[in-house]
């Protein structure tokens, strides 16, 4: 798209694939006029591993570890979404207890993902310390998830028709302690970051997205909610046991719909607080019972047809579309990942901003590159 012949004083800057702020291997080809950006073209695919192709060559069961590898920051949510998609396609329902366990773990994972985003975003803006505070909190979540699932990043914990293992007795108490701790921490983050004049100047009014643009580019997740649209699949198309829980969809109340970086920041911080509420409620509501559905085939094989399942992941609308011919291997499995669409708006946002804003905008979209590249 960018023409290679330059007749004016602009020059190209290759931001990435190895750059501290592209968080993974994303390459931005920028055309700069001084420090001002004239044009931007994202170049993707540096971590394309062919997950969709892998899905077509493996049985549904053997694809189980893969989804967490797409979005490694919210691995459990992808894992959860994949199991839910399969269960709905096969007409299987997991026991209530398993559903609650999954939901708690997925929401904890959402907090972990947002925390990491928070830290990394401040790192992009040059503040090093909040990053380590966020990691301290995230460490607690990983310890809790490690206690339940046995691993810390790519969980493979949800199973077709249930979960791999039951909660340990230590789990509720660890989680409650963490909830109290993070609530106190969120207040500190508010003082240290949200109210900080430098931070506000760096993010307010930067990278605004109007509702029309958001619709045009199919934005989703916190990025969309920052435009003032309370679209949350946990509410709109509730899956699992989300209907039982009471929580708010965090949006910014703006009529003009300026979803700038600061709004996106506030939405994610608000979502963390909401997720804490969800986890707290779910801990109260969790029933006793089995954790695996009985009489479920070991190898799932949905009846012939095509199925679609959407899920609100940490970054937005995750869709799984699968075509089955009745065998154990899918004909086609499409993963619509939220970051892919969220990144596509970047060439629209960048022109006219400064190099420093590039980092602020790119960070505020909360991209996970392996999820874009799949």
């Amino acid at each position, binding site marked *: 798209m960018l023409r290679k012949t330059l007749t004016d004083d602009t020059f190209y800057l290759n931001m990435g694939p190895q750059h501290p702020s592209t968080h993974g291997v994303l390459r931005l080809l920028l055309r700069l006029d001084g420090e001002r950006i004239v044009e931007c073209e994202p170049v993707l695919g540096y971590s394309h591993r062919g997950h969709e192709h892998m899905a077509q060559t493996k049985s549904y069961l053997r694809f189980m570890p893969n989804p967490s590898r797409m979005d490694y920051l919210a691995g459990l949510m992808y894992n959860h979404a994949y199991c839910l998609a399969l269960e709905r396609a096969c007409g299987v329902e997991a026991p209530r207890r398993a559903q609650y366990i999954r939901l708690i773990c997925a929401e904890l994972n959402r907090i972990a993902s947002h925390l990491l985003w928070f830290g990394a975003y401040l790192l992009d803006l040059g503040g090093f310390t909040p990053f380590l*505070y966020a990691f301290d909190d995230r460490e607690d979540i990983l310890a809790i998830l490690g*206690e339940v699932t*046995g*691993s810390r990043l790519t969980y*493979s914990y949800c199973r077709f028709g249930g979960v791999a293992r039951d909660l340990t007795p230590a789990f509720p108490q660890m989680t409650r302690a963490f909830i109290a701790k993070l609530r106190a921490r969120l207040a500190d983050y508010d003082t240290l*970051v949200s*109210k900080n*004049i430098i931070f506000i100047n760096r993010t307010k009014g930067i990278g605004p997205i109007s509702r029309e643009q958001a619709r045009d580019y199919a934005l989703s997740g916190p990025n969309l909610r920052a435009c003032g649209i309370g679209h949350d699949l946990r509410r709109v198309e509730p899956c699992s046991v989300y209907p039982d829980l009471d929580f708010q969809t965090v949006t910014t109340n703006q009529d003009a719909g300026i979803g700038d970086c600061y709004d996106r920041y506030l939405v994610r911080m608000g979502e963390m607080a909401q997720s804490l509420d969800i986890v707290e409620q779910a801990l109260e509501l969790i029933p006793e019972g089995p954790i695996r559905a009985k009489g479920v085939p070991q190898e799932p094989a949905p009846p012939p047809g095509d199925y679609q399942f959407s899920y609100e992941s940490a970054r937005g609308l995750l869709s799984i579309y699968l075509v089955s011919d009745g065998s154990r291997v899918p004909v086609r499995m499409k993963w619509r990942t939220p970051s892919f669409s969220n990144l596509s708006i970047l060439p629209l946002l960048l022109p006219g901003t400064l190099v420093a804003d590039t980092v602020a905008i790119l960070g505020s979209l909360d991209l996970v590159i392996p999820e874009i590249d799949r």
Partner: protein
Amino acid sequence: MGVGQYLNDLVTGAWSLASGMGVTVRYMFKPVSTVQYPRERLPLPEAYRGHIELIPHEGGHRCVACGECFRTCPSAVIKVQGFKRQASDHTRARYFFIDYSRCSLCGLCVEVCPEKALRFSREYEQAEVSRYGAVVDLMARLHEGGPS
């Protein structure tokens, strides 16, 4: 911009910076949250998933080399071979290898095992100098009574 606005911006800005510094200095006197790794270690959670290993059972193991685990394994990292001592015997596994470098620790093998012969080990310091070093001989581990 009026003078009042100007001064107001100045004061709120300065106050936000000062309160931010208040937070960091408070954290400075909090106990550190890091663990000095080679000297201190955290307890492993009970559910910890290292690579798989055979469960010791009456001086041996329960594996009958049915092959369910390597058929299920998404990355095909398991190699198991069994033999019979005589025609009337049950098959027993004699060789059991995993290529840990490609294992994704999903745990499907442990779940599908009909004899419940597998479990997760508690190994986590597995740096190797070559990728062949990551091939684990589970039988040898079992006989050495490797760390559990």
